């Protein structure tokens, strides 16, 4: 990534608000971003996508200002030369091949050698073996990586990604995280949204936490994570012998409470990591088969609300 030198903040939101009728999506949001990777974390419906769309110029602020490189993007479409965006949703042309889709982005950016730029971007996201496949035949993870190739084909100074790892398998996620880290280390300003704490942890050292349309916390990831650790999280487990598993789980020092309901159990834990480490061992020792393990979004939202309460 070549990026582009920028004086001052690359992204600046000044008391940005967005509402639709009586519904407030984002209220009074202010922050500045500079080079490096920043994670935008928050539960579903927190206003992350609205904020990212406003930064990209797709939404007009109801109040306040959104500045990129010190200028409002709505009045200056040429700023898109310096911005790459991976929007939410699919938003792909199913009949195009991977190569023609990325080449379209390169052509519309007016690059000098669009063919070479497209090939480089396709290789960066590991899509070269599938370059001639039509987008409609690809998996969700492959389509996501194609979108990323389209967004980085012009080597932007600002890269905005809305839930970019949706649908990627663990291997693809690891390679993608490495790519984003490299892009951030090269001086590009990267803003990545996610509702998954662990995902953001591996991507970004700086985070912004949004809850109910407001900024709940911002700054160093580890400091904020320590604050979050004060609050227990809920993990849902489905297993063929949930009751026996519950007896083992309640003995863990980090477990606060366990409720059993048929073949499912809800455990409240102060450490999701130690819970995740202990669970497979417990299941194996007790001969129980795990069918589903997930942290609940309500649980994450509860933690975020706790952060809002501390401000």
């Amino acid at each position, binding site marked *: 990534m070549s990026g582009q030198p920028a004086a001052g903040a690359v992204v600046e939101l000044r008391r940005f608000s967005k509402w639709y009728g009586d519904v407030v999506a984002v209220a009074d949001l202010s922050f500045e971003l500079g080079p490096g990777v920043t994670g935008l974390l928050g539960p579903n419906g927190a206003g992350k996508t609205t904020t990212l769309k406003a930064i990209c110029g797709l*939404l007009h602020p109801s109040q306040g200002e959104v500045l990129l490189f010190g200028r409002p993007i709505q009045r200056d479409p040429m700023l898109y*030369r310096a911005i790459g965006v991976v929007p939410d949703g699919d938003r792909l*042309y199913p009949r195009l091949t991977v190569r023609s889709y990325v080449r379209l982005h390169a*052509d519309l950016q007016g690059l000098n050698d669009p063919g070479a730029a497209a090939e480089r971007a396709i290789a960066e996201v590991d899509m070269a073996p599938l370059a001639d496949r039509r987008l409609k035949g690809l998996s969700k993870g492959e389509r996501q990586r194609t979108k990323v190739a389209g967004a980085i084909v012009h080597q932007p100074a600002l890269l905005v990604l809305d839930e970019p790892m949706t649908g990627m398998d663990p291997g693809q996620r690891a390679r993608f995280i490495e790519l984003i880290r490299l892009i951030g280390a090269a001086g590009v300003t990267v803003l990545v949204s996610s509702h998954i704490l662990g995902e953001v942890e591996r991507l970004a050292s700086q985070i912004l936490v949004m809850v109910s349309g407001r900024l709940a916390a911002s700054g160093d990831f580890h400091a904020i994570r320590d604050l979050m650790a004060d609050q227990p999280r809920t993990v849902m487990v489905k297993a063929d012998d949930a009751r026996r598993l519950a007896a083992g789980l309640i003995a863990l020092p980090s477990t606060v409470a366990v409720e059993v309901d048929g073949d499912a159990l809800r455990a409240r834990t102060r450490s999701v990591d130690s819970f995740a480490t202990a669970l497979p061992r417990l299941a194996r020792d007790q001969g129980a088969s795990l069918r589903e393990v997930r942290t609940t979004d309500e649980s994450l939202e509860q933690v975020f609300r706790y952060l809002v309460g501390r401000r």
Partner: protein
Amino acid sequence: MSKSLTLLRFSLGQLLAGRRLIIIAVLVALPLVLPAVFAARADVDPATFTLDLFRQLVLPVLLPVVALTFSTSSLGSELRDGTITNLLLKPIPRPAVLGAKYLAAVLSSLLVLLPAEAVGHVVAARGLGSTQLLGGMLLATTVGALAYCALGVLLSLLMARALLVGLAYALLWEGAVVSVAPSASSLSIRGYTEGVLAAVLKGEGLDLTTRLGPVSATVLAAVVTLAALFLAVRRLERMDIP
């Protein structure tokens, strides 16, 4: 290749991709060419036959249906499925994006309509026939496509059911309301195209009475087209993209 040309070429490809072009071309060509084949065998005046077919089938039905179908899907379908962000998040002013989408809809409509009209005319006349009539029909079709496509693009930016509303305008307003209230033809694209056709055919000896004079028809067609495009550009610049 410039970014605008890339955009136009891509938009044309999207509109005419797959079997869509063939299906629409056949649906348009059949009702124009088949009757011409029978007319060529019968003892009818080819010019009168072609003009009647043009006024009763092309102007009220085929032209608005084809132009509104292409123009409402050109920008509207990309807005609906979100793919428009691929084009809007680029260093291209939004009016240029709209212009490319509009031109793609006009060119697609003409690509389907003009050859079918020309073939129908040549078959009915068993030769080139009246070149003035052919020229008048092609010009009127072009003027109508320019106006209907501007209307279709504007409607697709304002509402989800743009095609339905556009067809209701063409069939109900232009078909029913104008016939009982002739003054309403000043707000009828079909009225403008008939006025343009009449201007070209003046002195040709064909029976063609129109409610609008040639100058009024031409001026009104230009005003409606430009006004619709102006409003569409304003709307696209100010709207939030979902």
